[in-house]
Structures are given as structure tokens and as C-alpha cells.
């Protein structure tokens, strides 16, 4: 936001300048001498604070901001001890609604214009502004036009007093009884950094935390206020088992035994192909990894899909060269193919808008229907739904990017579920075929941790770490004890097979195909056709209600772990409250089931899962729990230390990993040192030497029995191919390799 110089608290003395310029609007110049604590300045600061307070109601005990109020802090630091104002303060009606979510207490407003500037400059929704003059100046929305911005909650967070209030948080807690944990919001796949706060073991608030490469401190209202469901009354708190046609509450061992028993039976009678796993995009990477290992390594089925027929093929998402959000700021051009970002990935919209409007990056709006970015687009090229972007647009975008210098960022997702993904895929292929342009794709899939789930192999034909079944077969067989023989079915295929009675056990990992799959009829027939459904969910959704075994899982705010956002950035999510009931982490459920199926994952803590991912999944090599915890901005996979491990090839776009393909790790160049000033986190090198994980001294949950023959660590691991520099590769056992061709035709 541009400085406005309204509050006048920061008046200072500058040598050679008459009077008292405000520090916020005075650019620093060479040799400037600024005095901030002279007698004259202190008198003015005190005077200005007195002015700010004369009409401020001082109802701090009632105010939601009381205790975390910048005005209180300023008053303590610089303010007068008492007021000389004996007249009546100005009065207005106490909070008036600006929208369904935002309340405004005009008495408390100090007219700093933060909210109006945010609404206009950052969100592009100039729905509030000042009215009236003098000390009756007040912020208001326009008549008959509520402040219905997708980002209105940010104004509450940046309001320096308790003037703007969230109806959601009103009187819920006081700042001093809040406990805070830094986490990432997983409502959509942007993963804005936030601070989740709880009071008395209830999550009451989510605040945006400034993460430069991602959200700049902003959150969307969907993420900010969509947190109440964690403690919803209809959370399923205990495991359930269908007994005599009815779901009945049972103990965990009973439920797990029932699920494992059925799986074992089906495995024996029908083989692994009769078992399918749907979902997994809402959990952490650890959850996804454990379930991928259970499904592919233990059960041996490849009928696994974390998308619900509404995304893009995993080959595309994992195979193309990916952009970081920051690439948009320095891009030569941005092409938006996918859905309306404001609807699906709202904070990405803020970043795209900023790039297009404030940084002057030419933006091509190629969505089939008009979107929120159109006003800021340099070119609007509507495409026919179901058809790829025209060659002229591709050419123009490429030319623009070439002329301006900088990458061409393609934001790609599914514009709508009514449209097959082919059009988007072919559009990406068209951009990928360009010469002399650095094309990077920013996936705009919307499901919370869908990118993490895809990377962890919850997709047909893939194994953790962006490798295909064939490429990773040997590597993972050694570690997991086996991988599926061939490529399995995706969500559509699974449901179709289920409808035909070929699926005997369907595991729903937080998936609700009845409501979520584009073809609801197919989903219904599928669920009717499956004899045994295992639901791992927090709610009794329409599909989960059909379950034979219901295993309640923990949700965001109750679980620790890592998540991966749409640019491949791994960040930590933090547990702030104890789980409802006896809900268990998904990864723990998976490892319990695995144990009952005869495989010991030997994972006791979530950090151990993270470390196993870091050791096993090629693209995530080196992203250990310790590293992710240390990295302020998260880490973007793959780490530069581990370049050369993956080769990505798509038709027309064939780039070696050493050159930065399949990933994005600007500003750190492949094989080179990080340029000065590069954010430390994204390039923080993982330890190069692989340390043997120390065996913890404490007792394991369970005695290790036969499992030692299955756990990869027990047997001497084959030397994994490592690349020491950008060009020299070691010869050695099979290198995990993604070799896919875009399904262009």
C-alpha cells in the first residue's frame, strides 16, 4: 500500500527541511539526518496521540482489540498520561454491519485509511471509503452495496484499533488467553502462511502471516473464517463399524481389525486390483505418503487417485516445469488458462493482480468465461470451452515475453468440471513447444493439499517424489517391498469399475464422490456396487455415511506435518488443539492398517514420516523435518542439492533437471551458488551426507518382529544415484526417472 501520511504519528525532524515531515512519506536520501526523539518531535507525537484519543471511546475492556491494539501500544510508548479533553466525545451507533462478516465501530476509527487503501489497492474492491468531513469523517460502504469482498477479513487484521470487527471472532476470546501456532492455511492450494490461535482448546481465529514468496500477509475470507468446522458438532469423534446394517461406535482396534480383515480377505480372493483408494488431497504430505505406501507398497494396488475427476492429469502437474508465485512478478508475460483465480485460489489472484496492475506484467486472460482478472489483463482472449488456446495468442504471449525478458508463466487449472482437461493440457503443450521462451507452469488445482498428494504418489501410475511406476520400480521395491505391476485407474476409472462390481474394497480418504465427483450418477452406482467401503474422514459425508468402517481422522489445526502448495513449496502445518474425540492422524491409521496387513512402517512420529519422505521420495530428497522447520519461507522442491535426480521429459518440452526443469528454484541457479540476497529458505541446502537415522532410545510402540526384513533401512540400501554437479552424473543403479509424454492427441 502506498503511504498516505494521515495519522501524523511519525512526524520527525529532518536536517535542512523546515517543519516536521512524516517519516512514512519521506523518501530516504543520501546523507539525510533524521531526528526522531527531539523535544519538539516528542511534544508533537504526544500531541498527535492526544488528538487521536480525544474522540476514541476508550472502551478497551469491551473491544476485541483490547490487549493487542497498536493504539494502546502507541499510547503507552508515546502518549500523554491523561486527557485534557473534557467535552463529549463523538458518538455513533455501535457496530454497524458493513457486510455479513464485517462490523464497523465508527467511534473507534482513527481514520488511518488502511482498510480503504487495502480494499482499493490490494484487493481491487473499492467498496469502502471515507464520507463526511472534519472529526465526523468516517469509513462507510456505499448505499445498498455491502463490503462483500473476498478479502474483507484482511481489513480487520490490519485495522490498528477495534473499528473493523469480524462477526466471526466477536467476543470469542481476549488476546491474553490465546495460544498461537504458525501454520499454513490449507483451504485451497496456495497455502498462505497464517497463525492459528486457540482459546480453551478451540480454534477461534486465523491471522495472516507475512510470507514474502506466497501471501504477503494476506488471507482470503474463505480461509480466514472457514475454521469453525474443526469443532463442528457433527464431527465424527469415534470409530464406527457397520453392525447389522447400522454404524455403531466401536473401539479403534475393532474398527482397524475389521478394515484390515476385509482387505486381507479381498486380497486373497480377488488380488490387489479389487482394492481402490480415492481422495487424500485434504491431509498432510505425511498422510498422503503413508497411504501411498500402504496402497502401493503393502496392498499393491495402483487404483489410487487424490483428484476427483476435476483436476489435471498427474503427468502434467508433476511433469512440466513449474513456476513459483514470485515468477509472476518478474515474468515477461502471464497467461491464465485455468479457473478464475479469485474463485478458486483467491490469494493467487491478489498476486496476479499485483503483477499485472502494479508491476506492469502483461497478463493474458484466456479463461473461457469472463473472470476477475479481465480488468487488469493486457489481452483478453476468450477461448471456446473445450478448445485449447489459439496459436495466435500463444505466439503473441511468447513474443511479449521475449521482448520484455523474463519467463512466461502459464497459470493452468480446470476452468470447469464440465470441460475435459484435454483443452488445458493441449494449451500447456502449445506453450511448451515454444522456442526461446522460458515457459513455467503454475498449477491452479484448488484442492487443499492436492499437490502434496500428487507428489506423494496418490495418483495412478506414480510413486512418491514425481516418479512413475516404471522409473521408480526398483528403487521403491527395495524400500517398500514391492510396487504395483502396472498403471491403475484414475477416479473416473475406479468409480466405473466399482459400478461394474470389480472393486471390492473402496477406501475414501476424506473423499465424497457423491457430492464431489462431476458425474454424481456414476458415483452413486459406484458406491452401490462396492461391497465394502472404508471411510477415513472427519465428517459423515453423504459418501462416508455409506461406509462399513468409519475411521475418524484429525484435521487441520489438530495435526502436525508438512503440506505442498501449488508451486511445490513445502511448509509446516502445526497442531494447535487436541483432536476431537479419539480421532487419529491419517498416516497413523495407514501404518496401523499396514501393521495388521503384515508390514511395519516403523514410524512413531510425524517427523519420522517427513524424514522418510525426504530419504525416499526423489523430488523431496533432503526436505527433512528439521530443514522444513528451519526454513522461514518453506522449501521449494526439489532442492538444488539434489538436482540431476529427475529427468522430466514431455513432448516438445524436454529439459534436464540440471537446467531447472520439473521444478522451480529461482533465484538459485542450478549447480551454482545462490545469488546474493536470495531468500535463505528456498535454497537452504540439505545436508549432503546422508546420516543414518539414529534409533531412538525409547521403546517402540510395538516390538519389531518380522518387519525388519521389510523396512528398507534394515537391509543395506543400494547406493542411490547422486549428482554432485550439474553435468557429471554418477553411474549406478536405476535412477528414478519421469518419462511421460503429454497426451496431446
Amino acid at each position, binding site marked *: 500500500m502506498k*503511504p*498516505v*501520511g*494521515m*495519522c*501524523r*504519528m511519525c*512526524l520527525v525532524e529532518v536536517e535542512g527541511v*523546515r*517543519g*516536521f515531515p*512524516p517519516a512514512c*512519506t519521506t523518501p530516504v536520501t543520501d546523507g539525510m539526518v533524521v531526528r526522531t526523539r527531539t523535544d*519538539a518531535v516528542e*511534544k*508533537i507525537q504526544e*500531541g*498527535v496521540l*492526544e*488528538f*487521536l484519543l*480525544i*474522540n476514541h471511546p476508550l472502551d478497551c475492556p469491551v473491544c476485541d482489540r483490547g490487549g493487542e491494539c497498536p493504539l494502546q501500544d502507541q499510547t503507552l510508548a508515546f502518549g500523554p498520561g491523561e486527557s*485534557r*479533553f473534557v*467535552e463529549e466525545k*463523538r458518538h455513533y451507533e455501535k457496530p454497524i454491519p458493513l457486510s455479513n462478516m464485517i462490523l464497523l465501530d465508527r467511534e473507534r476509527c*482513527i*481514520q488511518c485509511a488502511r482498510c480503504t487503501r487495502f480494499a482499493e489497492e490490494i484487493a481491487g474492491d473499492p467498496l469502502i*471509503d*471515507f464520507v*463526511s*468531513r*472534519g*472529526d*465526523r*469523517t468516517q469509513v462507510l460502504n456505499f448505499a445498498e452495496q455491502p463490503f462483500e469482498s473476498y478479502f474483507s477479513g484482511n481489513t480487520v487484521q490490519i485495522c490498528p484499533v477495534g473499528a473493523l470487527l469480524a462477526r466471526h471472532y466477536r467476543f470469542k476470546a481476549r488476546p491474553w488467553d490465546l495460544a498461537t501456532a504458525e501454520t499454513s492455511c490449507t483451504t485451497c492450494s496456495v497455502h498462505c502462511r497464517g497463525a492459528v490461535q486457540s482459546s480453551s482448546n478451540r480454534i477461534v481465529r486465523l491471522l495472516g502471516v507475512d510470507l514474502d514468496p506466497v501471501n504477503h500477509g494476506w488471507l482470503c475470507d474463505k480461509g480466514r473464517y472457514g475454521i469453525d468446522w474443526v469443532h463442528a458438532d457433527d464431527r465424527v469423534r469415534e470409530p464406527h463399524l457397520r453392525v447389522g446394517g447400522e454404524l455403531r461406535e466401536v473401539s479403534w482396534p475393532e474398527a482397524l481389525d475389521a478394515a484390515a480383515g476385509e482387505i486381507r480377505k479381498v486380497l486373497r480372493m480377488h488380488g490387489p486390483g479389487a482394492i481402490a483408494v480415492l481422495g487424500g488431497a485434504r491431509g498432510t504430505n505425511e498422510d498422503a505418503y503413508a497411504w501411498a505406501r500402504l496402497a502401493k507398497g503393502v496392498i499393491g494396488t495402483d487404483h489410487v487417485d487424490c483428484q476427483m475427476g476435476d483436476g489435471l492429469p498427474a503427468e502434467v502437474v508433476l511433469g512440466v516445469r513449474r513456476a513459483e508465485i514470485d515468477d509472476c512478478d518478474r515474468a515477461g508475460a502471464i497467461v491464465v488458462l485455468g479457473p478464475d483465480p479469485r474463485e478458486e485460489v483467491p490469494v493467487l489472484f491478489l498476486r496476479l493482480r499485483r503483477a499485472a496492475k502494479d508491476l506492469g506484467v502483461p497478463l493474458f486472460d484466456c479463461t473461457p468465461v469472463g473472470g476477475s482478472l479481465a480488468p487488469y489483463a493486457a489481452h483478453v482472449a476468450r477461448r471456446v470451452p473445450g478448445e485449447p488456446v489459439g496459436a495466435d495468442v500463444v505466439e503473441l504471449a511468447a513474443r511479449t515475453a521475449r521482448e520484455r525478458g523474463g519467463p512466461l508463466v502459464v497459470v493452468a487449472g480446470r476452468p470447469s468440471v464440465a470441460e475435459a482437461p484435454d483443452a488445458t493440457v493441449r494449451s500447456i503443450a502449445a506453450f511448451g513447444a515454444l522456442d526461446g521462451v522460458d515457459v513455467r507452469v503454475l498449477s491452479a488445482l484448488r484442492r487443499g493439499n492436492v499437490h502434496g498428494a500428487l507428489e506423494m504418489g496418490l495418483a495412478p501410475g506414480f510413486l512418491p517424489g514425481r516418479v512413475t511406476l516404471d522409473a521408480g520400480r526398483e528403487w521403491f521395491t527395495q524400500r517398500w517391498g514391492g510396487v504395483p505391476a502396472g498403471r491403475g485407474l484414475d477416479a473416473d476409472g475406479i468409480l466405473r469399475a466399482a459400478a461394474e462390481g470389480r472393486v471390492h474394497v473402496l477406501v475414501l480418504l476424506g473423499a465424497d464422490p457423491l457430492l464431489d465427483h462431476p458425474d454424481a450418477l456414476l458415483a452413486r452406482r459406484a458406491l452401490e456396487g462396492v461391497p465394502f467401503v472404508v471411510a477415513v474422514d472427519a465428517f459423515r459425508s453423504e459418501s462416508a455415511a455409506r461406509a462399513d468402517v468409519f475411521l475418524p481422522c484429525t484435521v487441520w489445526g489438530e495435526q502436525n506435518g508438512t503440506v505442498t502448495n501449488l508451486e511445490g513449496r513445502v511448509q509446516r502445518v502445526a497442531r494447535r488443539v487436541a483432536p476431537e474425540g479419539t480421532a487419529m492422524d491419517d498416516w497413523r491409521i495407514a501404518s496401523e492398517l499396514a501393521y495388521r496387513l503384515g508390514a511395519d512402517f516403523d514410524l512413531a512420529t510425524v517427523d519420522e514420516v517427513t524424514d522418510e519422505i525426504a530419504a525416499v521420495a526423489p523430488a523431496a530428497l533432503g526436505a527433512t523435518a528439521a530443514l522444513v522447520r528451519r526454513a522461514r519461507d518453506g522449501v521449494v522442491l526439489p532442492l538444488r542439492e539434489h538436482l540431476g535426480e529427475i529427468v522430466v521429459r514431455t513432448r516438445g518440452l524436454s529439459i534436464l533437471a540440471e537446467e531447472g526443469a520439473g521444478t522451480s528454484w529461482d533465484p538459485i541457479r542450478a549447480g551454482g551458488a545462490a545469488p546474493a540476497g536470495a531468500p535463505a529458505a528456498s535454497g537452504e541446502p540439505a545436508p549432503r551426507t546422508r546420516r543414518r537415522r539414529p534409533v531412538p532410545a525409547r521403546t517402540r510402540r510395538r516390538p519389531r518382529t518380522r518387519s525388519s526384513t521389510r523396512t528398507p533401512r534394515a537391509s543395506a540400501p543400494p547406493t542411490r544415484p547422486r549428482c554432485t554437479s550439474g553435468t557429471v552424473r554418477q553411474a549406478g543403479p536405476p535412477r528414478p526417472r519421469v518419462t511421460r509424454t503429454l497426451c496431446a492427441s
Partner: protein
Amino acid sequence: MSVEERRIVTRRLHERPEDSWTIDGALASGAYRVWREVLRTGDPAAVQEQVRLSGLRGRGGAGFPTAQKWSFLPEGRYPRYLVVNGDEGEPSTFKDRMLVERDPHQLVEGIAIASYAIGCNLAFVYLRGEFALGYERLTQAIADARSHGFLGRDVLGSGFDLDVVVHRGAGAYICGEETALIESLEGERGMPRIRPPFPAVEGLYAKPTVVNNVETLSTLPHIVEMGGEEYAKLGVNRSTGTRIFSVSGHVKRPGNYEVELGVTFRDLVFGLAGGIRDDRAVKFFIPGGASSQWLTGSDEHLDAPLDMDFVQQTYGVMLGSGAVMVFDDTTDPLLVAWRLAKFFAHESCGKCTPCREGTGWIEKVLYRMAHGMGRPEDLDLLFDVGDNISPGVVNAPFTQTTICPLGPSVVSSIASLHRYFRDEVQARVGVSA
């Protein structure tokens, strides 16, 4: 007492009271003659030079040399705009209104000459919204000027294009401040902008912009006609030429008087305006509009010359917009100060905290004091609050903690109370306390 008006800018409207605003009347008394001549000569720099020689200073209030203002325009950056400040909102000032209503062609000619001098092809007139008649006559005058070829494409065959847009304000005093005026013209809420960048560098629509007052521009044709040096012979010291003074208050003949600068306040009040009603004594007068500090009815003050620099340096007051408000000895200075504060509290745009909250506070305190509810400490309180808006207000040169001078304006009357009527005010609050 024998001073006469020296009518230059107001000559035509006095000569032809019946039709001075029409194109025929104006042409008959010599309008656009200078404009033709300027175009014929075709030398913008010469016009600028004449203005520089004339020593013309802005008639809007600040008294900044016009030629110098023009010289701040950055070289070679076009388009640039001329904005005419016709938002005459200063209480008791009514000279621009007369000029717009009764001699709009003189203003149009001035705009044309100024535009030509600075190389601007589009001028804006920001006219106070309440000037209904002025708006009517000015738009008519512009239409007539255009149909006579004085404006529009290729003016009088010179190849110079010029158009004038008239915009009516919506009643905010702050829009008389040049950056707030520009904001308002752009369609934003009228609030002053932070400087730098100055309007001359980045003004209207982020283009180089000159903002001049109506009277300043109306003087231009006469300067060019007389020659700058000749004009500079009028007046006194650095206050050259003539100015229109709006005399109001307890005088027998209130009105606009154009006098040569250098005559005294006594000439103005007792000569031209006919003295005080009922032949009472002057208690105090406000020499330059509501934002100026006051002077008293003492001989020293009355005999002070109308010289911007002299009164500024000697008494710390400004001639401002040339509005002289005279109060006789029946006046309660506290009430006057309160009424002025009420005006400023109402008109504060709400941008800077000291002005937004301070003017309202001062108004409330003054109301109490003027209505028998004052406390002994109130005058010192007022003074300290004023000092937080405008530090060092008594010991000129004072500074300000606000962006524009509106906030400090309210402090002027407090400083005057403090300086001239301290005992009277103290007696009032002491008794009622």
C-alpha cells in the same frame, strides 16, 4: 482619506455595468486584443518574461510569484495542464466571484495567454459550485470565445490549440487548496496530496500542472498590454500592481475595491469603505481572509501599508486572499474566534489527525468559553493544542504538522486572541469559572 481606486482588472465591469460579461460588450471594450497580439508575436517566452518583470504574485492567498511557479514546469514534458482555481471559499472573500460573473472574457483571455505561455492545450476551470451565475456566464463566454475563434483548434490561425473545461465544485472549502482541487478534479475525494511531487511536476492526471487563481489570470492581459516593467511600477516593494480587496464587516460601504498595493488599511477601511457603522471605533480586523491572523484598531495597525512582505514580517499576518473583515468595538472576539473555528472544523477534510481532531476540539473549547462555560486554564489549553497543530504559531515563521494550511488556519485566531485579547479573555473565563 483621499485614496482612489486604481481600476485595472475591474475597469471593464465598472465601465460597462450593463453588458460587461457579454462577448459584444467585452469586445467593445478591448477584450482579446492582447490575445491576438500575443498570438501574432508568437513568442511564449516573451510573455513569461513580461510576467517575470511585472513581479506578479498569486492572488489566491499564498502570494507566490507567478512566473516562478511557471518556471517549475519540467522541460519538455507534455501534455501539461493549466488549472484555474475558482473555488473561492475563503470566508468574506468575494472578488473572484465578481470577476467570473461580470468579466468572464477577461478571465478567458488570461487563461489563453497563460496557456500559450506555458504550452498547455487544455485548461480546466474549477469553479465553486455555488457560483451558479458565474458558471452560466463563464460557459457562455467560453462558447462565445470559441465561436469567435479565440479558443478551439488552430486559434486565430496561429496553429495553437486550446480548450477550456469548466468543472463545478461540490462545496468543499478544502478544494481551494491546489492539490485537493486536483484530486477533486480527477473525481476523487477532495483531500490534499502529499508533496513532493509538486503539481508542477506531477499534478492533474499525473501530468505537469500549473494552478493559478482567477484574479491572477485576469491580471495577465493587462500586464502583457502594459508591459511587465510598467506594471511593476505600480505597488510597493515586492508587492507590485493592484489588488482587489473585499472589505466586509462593520463598515458603511462593504464591497470590492481595487487599489494599488501600498496604500494603508486606513485608506481602505475609512476611505473607500466609508468608515465604521455608527462611527464607532475599530476593535480589530482580519486583514487577509479567515485563515489570517488579526490586527487591532490601533493606529499602528491601521496605518500599515498593504504590502505583503511588510505585514508578514512585522505583524506575522498575511494579506492572503485580500478579504478584510472589520469588527467594531461591540464585537466579542471569542465569538468571532469560535465562529471561525466552527467553519474550519466543519471544512477540515479529515486527512491529517491534528487538523481533523484538533479543529473540532478547539471549536468545542471556544464554544464553551464564548458561552460562559470557560475555565481559567482554557486559553492555555487552546494555545497548547494550537501549538500541536502549528508549532511555533506566535513566533513566526511557524511550521505545521498537517499537509495543508487548513489546520494551522484555525490556530491564527487563537494566536490573535492570545496576543491582543488575552486579558479580556482571561477575565471572561476567570469570572465564569
